[in-house]
Structure formats: structure tokens, C-alpha cells
């Protein structure tokens, strides 16, 4: 059993990571270029992965890093290369 307080959040580190996640999320929906949006989304996934790893969920972090930041980005880039790079709105 995990004792209470044995593994606390590292508050400043956590806040920095959450700040980066927030910045990435806002940037990903604001930017007009879809390729940049996909790249920022990949960075977002990596920051999420760092947060998972810091909370001790290493399996989830690994999944996030490989699936979301790796293959997800690749698939979206492939889709962009088949369609258009500029967003319409």
C-alpha cells in the first residue's frame, strides 16, 4: 500500500509542466498552419507524457509517448500531406 505523503507532487515542477501543456494547447488551436498545429500537438503529448511519468504512471507515459506523440503525429502529417496545409477558417 502506498502511504499517504510518501510520494508528494513536486509542486514547482508540476506547475511548470502544466503551464507548458496549457501554452501548447492554446497554441495548437490558435495557429493557422495545420502542420505547425500538428507539431505543437506532438509537443503537447510529450509534456503530458512528462506529467504522467512524474505522477508515477510510467505505463501511461510510455503509451502517451509512443502512440500519441509518435504515431499520432505521423498519421496526422500523412493526412495533411494528402489534403491541405492551410486551415479554412
Amino acid at each position, binding site marked *: *500500500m502506498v502511504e499517504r505523503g510518501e510520494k508528494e507532487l513536486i509542486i514547482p515542477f508540476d506547475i511548470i509542466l502544466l503551464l507548458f501543456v496549457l501554452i501548447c494547447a492554446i497554441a495548437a488551436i490558435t495557429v493557422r498552419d495545420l502542420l505547425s498545429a500538428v507539431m505543437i500537438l506532438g509537443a503537447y503529448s510529450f509534456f503530458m507524457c512528462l506529467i504522467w511519468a512524474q505522477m508515477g504512471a510510467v505505463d501511461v507515459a510510455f503509451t502517451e509517448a509512443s502512440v500519441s506523440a509518435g504515431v499520432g503525429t505521423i498519421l496526422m502529417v500523412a493526412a495533411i500531406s494528402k489534403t491541405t496545409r492551410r486551415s479554412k477558417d
Partner: protein
Amino acid sequence: MKIVNLLVVIITGMVLAYGTMDMPDWGDPNSPASRHVSPGYISDAVEKTATPNIVTAVLADYRSYDTLGETAVIFSAGMACILLLRRKRKK
């Protein structure tokens, strides 16, 4: 119209943030979710499945129906992609 959208988003966010207040603390052993079956998993898994990584034991043994469903979802997604996107080669 934009202001209405912003208001809706802000209000929804505030309601969601209010909803998280009632969530148990992070890593709280006395929260309802970690009192039901988790102690059993934690105490039994290594002994009964010979798998030191409890996450894998839960994912692939205790909850293997879930993982089977997950695999089936991925498989059907791939099949849908093949059916929709793949075209026959012209001979």
C-alpha cells in the same frame, strides 16, 4: 456572438473545475476507487500471476476482456481504413 461563446466556455470550465473539488486527493488510499478491488490486485497479483508489473497483470489478465475489446477496436479501425482508402491497382 464571440462573447457568448467565450462566456459559455468559461462557465463550463468553471463548473468542471468545481466538479474536481470533490474528487479524492491524488494517490489517496482511502478513496472509493482504491478500496474496492485495488487492494486485492496489489496483494495478489505478483503471487498469482508471476508478473512483477501489476499494471500489465491488471491490463492483460484481470481485465483482459477490456484489452480484447481495445484490440478489436484498433483492428476494425484498420479494416475501415483499408475499405475506405485502398484502391485496386489497375492492371
